[in-house]
């Protein structure tokens, strides 16, 4: 979260912090471990009233951001969620809201957006498949036109907004779908006939849809697998234009990484904070354990990584907002590059910080009684979801590689480095 928050943003941060501390303290998070959904729907509606669902929804549909910089607003919330390990489908709901809100035919989904904002319904994003890769080339589910509008005419039909049912058929299986069990709708990303991507909003009680619930290493985040077998999808369900959603999907992925990085920053910040308090009070050999240089030097490294994590996480949020406000300002590859850098760095360092804090906490750090395992759970889930640091680095390399031309007769011995 940025250092130079506006007064509105500061008030929002304080309100979120208080709300989490009073309504879902860590003791409640522990209780929710046994809860099938991982959160109470009534509580989610309370959170929605505080603005947890509205930041990416245009004002015309009942939403609105605090400062006009919606991602910067949302990362304030995401960091607090990380600090308090708040439950609830924050990420999936906001990704859907952002995807639909930014689409060319948002008005067509106005009713659903309104109900998302109020917290009355939950819609989730169904993107990844069995391989667990969050890149556009990994999408194999298909959305195929049927009926009178065949082949290349499908796009035309979608733009025309045919309402008379059964324009497309959806097939495929989506894995690692957060809050699948709690959702009534899913925004499904599928491959179009032209090889591009399409996104459709599908009611999960439609014929041919089956949802299989699942858990994760996190205390409260539940996941699921959703199968679509010959599901009839009306053209009115399209979000954006059929076969032309790749850029929108990439933005949703970048936003996912941004919210997630902010959450990981909150997790690492809070974990380091309580570990230092503990280490000041815990004595060994007649001294507080954090007076030993062996620990002080590890802690100094953690402080350095954390500061850098905050810097890169904030920059990503700012760049995504700049891109939304003026697409000509920031190229998509620049946002993409920064998203890879952020997830690689923040994913790696925050996991390491929490891991080191477990070590400093000592034996009690691996018990159920101590809270640190709950932070370790969330951060290690985040590390993998939406792509691991290793996967993002591979993607980053390919992006960099595509910008470097070959030079004949390179002299390897002259590679400078310092």
């Amino acid at each position, binding site marked *: 979260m940025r250092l130079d928050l506006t007064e509105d943003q500061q008030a929002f941060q304080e309100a979120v912090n208080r709300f989490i501390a009073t309504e879902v303290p860590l003791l409640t998070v522990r209780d929710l471990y046994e809860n099938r959904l991982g959160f109470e729907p009534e509580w989610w509606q309370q959170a929605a009233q505080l603005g947890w669902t509205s930041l990416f929804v245009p004002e015309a549909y009942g939403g609105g951001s605090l400062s006009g910089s919606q991602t910067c607003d949302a990362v304030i919330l995401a960091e607090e969620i990380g600090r308090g390990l708040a439950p609830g489908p924050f990420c999936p709901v906001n990704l859907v809201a952002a995807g639909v809100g930014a689409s060319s035919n948002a008005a067509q989904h106005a009713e659903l957006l309104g109900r998302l904002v109020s917290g009355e319904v939950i819609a989730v994003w169904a993107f990844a498949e069995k391989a667990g890769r969050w890149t556009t080339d990994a999408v194999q589910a298909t959305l195929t036109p049927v009926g009178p509008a065949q082949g290349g005419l499908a796009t035309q039909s979608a733009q025309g907004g045919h309402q008379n049912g059964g324009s497309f058929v959806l097939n495929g299986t989506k894995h690692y779908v957060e809050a699948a069990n709690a959702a009534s709708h899913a925004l499904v990303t599928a491959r179009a006939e032209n090889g591009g991507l399409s996104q459709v909003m599908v009611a999960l009680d439609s014929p041919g849809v089956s949802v299989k619930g699942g858990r994760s290493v996190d205390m409260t985040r539940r996941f699921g697998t959703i199968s679509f077998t010959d599901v009839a999808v009306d053209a009115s369900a399209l979000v954006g234009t059929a076969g032309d959603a790749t850029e929108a999907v990439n933005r949703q992925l970048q936003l996912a990484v941004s919210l997630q990085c902010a959450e990981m920053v909150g997790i690492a910040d809070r974990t380091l904070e309580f570990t230092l308090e503990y280490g000041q009070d815990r004595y060994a050999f007649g001294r507080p354990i954090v007076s030993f240089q062996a620990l002080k030097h590890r802690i100094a490294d953690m402080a350095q990584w954390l500061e850098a994590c905050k810097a890169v996480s904030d920059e990503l949020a700012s760049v995504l907002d700049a891109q939304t406000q003026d697409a000509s300002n920031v190229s998509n590859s620049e946002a993409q590059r920064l998203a890879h850098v952020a997830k690689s760095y923040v994913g790696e360092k925050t996991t390491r910080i929490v891991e080191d804090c477990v070590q400093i906490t000592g034996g009690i750090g691996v018990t159920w009684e101590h809270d640190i395992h709950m932070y370790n759970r969330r951060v290690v889930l985040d590390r993998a979801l939406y792509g691991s640091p290793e996967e993002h680095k591979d993607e980053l390399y390919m992006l960099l590689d595509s*910008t470097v031309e070959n030079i004949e007769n390179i002299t390897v*011995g002259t590679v400078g*480095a310092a």
Partner: protein
Amino acid sequence: MSASKLPESIADFSSRATEWISANLPSTDDPPQNPIELQRCLFDNGFAGIAFPAEYGGAGLTLEHQKVFYDLAREMGRQVPTGTGLMVSVGMLGPTLLEHGSHEAKAKFLPRLLRGDDLWIQLLSEPRGGSDMAGARTRLTRDGDSYVLSGSKMWSTGAHVSHYGLCLARTDWEAPKHRGLSMIAVPLDTGTEGLVVQQTRTADGTLGEFCEEFFDDVALPAENLIGEENTGWSVAQTLLFHERNAAANVGFGYTGWEQSSSRRAGYEPGRLEDLIRTARARGTDGDSSVRQLIADVHIDNTVVPLTSDRIMLGMSLGTHQGQWGSLLKLQYSEGAVERVRAALAVSGAEGVIWDDDEVELDNPGTSWLLIRGGTLAGGSSEMQRNIISERLLGLPREPSVERGIPFNEVIRNQKSPE
């Protein structure tokens, strides 16, 4: 500047600077201009020492104005005066003289320093010890209207081409070690009687920038003393503070970031491109471990300036107070080691072996020999970690066996048999 006069607004300054830079500074595509001449040009036009008071030759503005000036010049693709000599003089010694010098000393030294006429260096470390700087044994003795200096200093960068050195020496041997030190300005001209300056041959076999100085009863005027007698440690603390800032490219030493390594300029540095080309040339660019290493270099190149920007913003907002330069210095210098490590890994045998007709000192193998200089100079990484953990995070200080003991006695204890 009178107290009632407000500094020029950032917006006004920015447009004035833009106009001047555009009309006067050479493009980075032009042949590189001598940094001293560039500095003189800035000085003569009121853009040198932007945050120094006007009465001592500065522009009487703030560090924020300085950052605006250099960021503008970099964004406009113009040359700015850089290099170790100016960075040390203007970024480190200048602000130290400003804080501790008498009015006479400042009027005498600062204008020539800011104009680039006199290059200044620090004379702190001794052959006997670098990290334990307060253990200095160079002797400074009052003799009527002057002082007499004897002893030796080491690791002073650029002494052989500089005009003044600020030297830490012991004036009271009965006081505890931090309380018997004084700081004095020593002319480094070859004409100074009793002074010998020798370049130190570094591990790569060259006579580099490091020097060693020998003082054999060098007579110095009393007005060269900077700060009161026996307050030299506090002057040294100021100097070290500015050294870490300058090493991290923040504060008075800020000269902007090369556009090539800036996050905004797209993909950077020639060096990263060389790594990619080298991997291609060796056929290892499909190897995931090589790709991850190269991606890590790019990630570091992106994260370091972002962290610096964040901390500079925090310093101006007041959210970051104290020795944050230590954190940046640790990050920057340790990152540099990792870059060379990656270059060694990517280039293999070609990085450490060359034919007679391609002798090239700037290869990964030779860089490797000196790269640890960065994590030692200006306070080792271990000292930075002490500072971060103790001063920024408030962890307990290291226990001391010397506190409150006269320095004479400390030395005697070291000499006594085990």
